[in-house]
């Protein structure tokens, strides 16, 4: 099975370990993983801002470089939502690109969905000593129905216990440009998330979208929480590289 790994711009820049962990997970499951060299951005920022032409341009670029693989896997619910749900909508009126967008959408999966539902991967690759609480990111949860898969995978990790926090489905206030444009509102929202995390008292908060995680981690640290780890699920499942 030959698949393309699409690494989000945030992972590339801020937390490359998420991409490396995804790579190790997929390879350990026996996949031939290729990282298309020309990949850059899925176009979500332009789409969210309402700039359809720019979003369409970047969608076409992504489609061109991700075609021709059995699957495309993305360690992010929100970028996967962009490819699966937005690309076909964005290019619906284009007779050439609409079918290509649809074909790509059907073969593109968010990492945990791919591991749990398509590969049905054997875990663990790594141990995790401690308790985690899972934050459901909005786009993955409500756009793609990701809920059961990450939990199923986490529970296979040796030594890991899962403690659900209250309101685990509540938005963390990131929302991409929202947290930049409306920083104070976003802070107010993420504060409530931090309180839920503090209350459950887990060793780590785990999620599937780096944007939410950077937001949560940033607020936890600013509030003075130096100990709760904030990890992408790929990092937990694959273990941190020695």
């Amino acid at each position, binding site marked *: 099975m030959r698949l393309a790994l699409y690494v989000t711009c945030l992972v*590339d820049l801020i937390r490359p370990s998420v991409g490396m962990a995804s790579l190790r997970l997929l390879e350990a499951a026996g996949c031939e993983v290729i990282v298309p060299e020309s990949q*850059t951005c899925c176009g979500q920022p332009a789409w969210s801002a309402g700039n359809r032409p720019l979003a369409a341009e970047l969608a076409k670029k992504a489609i061109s470089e991700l075609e021709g693989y059995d699957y495309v896997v993305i360690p992010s619910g929100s970028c996967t939502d962009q490819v699966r749900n937005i690309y076909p909508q964005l290019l619906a009126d284009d007779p050439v690109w609409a079918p290509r967008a649809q074909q790509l959408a059907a073969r593109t999966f968010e990492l945990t969905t791919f591991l749990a539902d398509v590969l049905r991967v054997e875990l663990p690759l790594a141990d995790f000593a401690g308790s985690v609480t899972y934050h459901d990111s*909005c786009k993955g949860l409500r756009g793609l129905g990701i809920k059961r898969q990450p939990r199923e995978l986490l529970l296979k990790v040796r030594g890991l216990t899962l403690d659900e926090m209250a309101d685990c489905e509540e938005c963390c206030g990131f929302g991409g440009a929202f947290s930049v444009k409306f920083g*104070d509102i976003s802070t*107010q929202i993420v504060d409530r998330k931090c309180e839920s995390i503090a209350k459950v008292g887990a060793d780590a908060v785990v999620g599937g979208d780096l944007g939410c995680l950077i937001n949560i981690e940033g607020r936890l640290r600013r509030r003075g929480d130096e100990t709760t780890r904030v990890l992408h699920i790929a990092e937990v499942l694959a273990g941190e590289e020695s």
Partner: protein
Amino acid sequence: MAGAKHSQAMFFQARAGEKIRNKVLQKALQKAKPLFVGKRAKAMAALPEDGFEFEALRSACVDIRNRVLGDLDVWLELFEEKAKATGAEVLWARDGDEICDLVIDVARRHGVTKATKSKSMLSEEAHLNEALAAAGIRPVETDLGEYIIQLAGETPSHIIAPAVHKTIEEVEALFAEEHGRPLETRTSADIPAMTREAREVLRQHFLSADMGITGANFLIAETGSAALVTNEGNGRMVTTLPRVHVVVTGIEKIVPTLDDFATLMRLLPRSATGQTISNYVSLLTGTKQPGDSDGPEKTVFILVDNGRANLLGSAYQEMLRCIRCGACMNHCPVYFSLGGHAYGWVYPGPMGSVLTPLYTGIENALDLPHASTGCNQCGTVCPVRIPLPGLMHRLREEQVERGLRPLGESFALKAWAWLAGKPRLYRWVVRRASRYLNWLADDSGRIRILGMAPGWTAGRDLSVPAGKTFHEQYAARKRA
């Protein structure tokens, strides 16, 4: 541009900061949210026991609303015909000013000097209370929440819980001042006693008003009736005691039949307050007949456009399905961080972020379509499946198409897209950015002030990676 002159929606961002710093408001909001969310969840979870799944009921409600919007003129004509046959008068208003003129005219024709009111958001759109007062007619709000904010000189901050932004202590102080009764006559935070006090004051108004003004949750075409859903019984006082009853309602509020109304009622109270049914459901048809013990001698329907007809056949038509349950705002993380007043006009939360720009002009509410994290909790709970994030997104597109976005934002996006189209250059820039972020970080590996996104680092630290970018690491791994 009805209402635009009164809209404060352009000041959303400034208002937001003010609301976040208001500790009293924050206390009120944090208390209310779990109640709304919990009660609705419980009511929805209990639905299958009644034999109707939420999704099936939702589909039925969507169909009813779409059927109406597909032939709105036909249903309105039928309603007019049926209402007239019951002896009611039917008038039409294009905008807020016309609503005020018509209501004042009805009041003058019938020698009215005081009007009791049951909650009506359209009268907020029209600023009806101000107009009535200026014409020498005293409007008295009788819904407890509306009564509180009328005393306080404020506007509603929520469409079903107008005073949700107020704490008990604030209301206590307000009552003590306005009712002229010392606080010591009741124990602190005694809600039943406070309610009783308000009822005693309102009773005099119910008995002395010559006109009752209400909205309508629905208009029923086949019978020419107005349906009113309340929890306090004030709606009945306002519609049965005064000589004249005026119903002010939007043209989209119509439903074809009583059966359709019954279907919508299965979801409206459950979505709004988590109730199986509200305490009072009134179906008001016609005027007082010989032998009736109560009821108005004169009933007037004022059917209002105020921007609604423009949405028919547009990309925003789905918004007209709205049944004003408030579920979207009750589940919105942004709404519950700010309360409704930050939104600057009559309708707050996700539905307001769509309606306010549409009714008052996109250029007068630039921030509102962006005042969403895109979490789509609103779309998930909407009983008539309005794709609220999708409509906000369409408004954002329209802002871009009309060149209404700030130049800096447009430029940044274009620069980003241009760069993303040049992978080798992009790679180089990301590598430089990675180094730059590392350079900005302090000893603990965190950035505490980021010039490019000061709003972000005002509340958060940004952790930076110690290592190289993913693509650098991947390239090194391939070479190895």
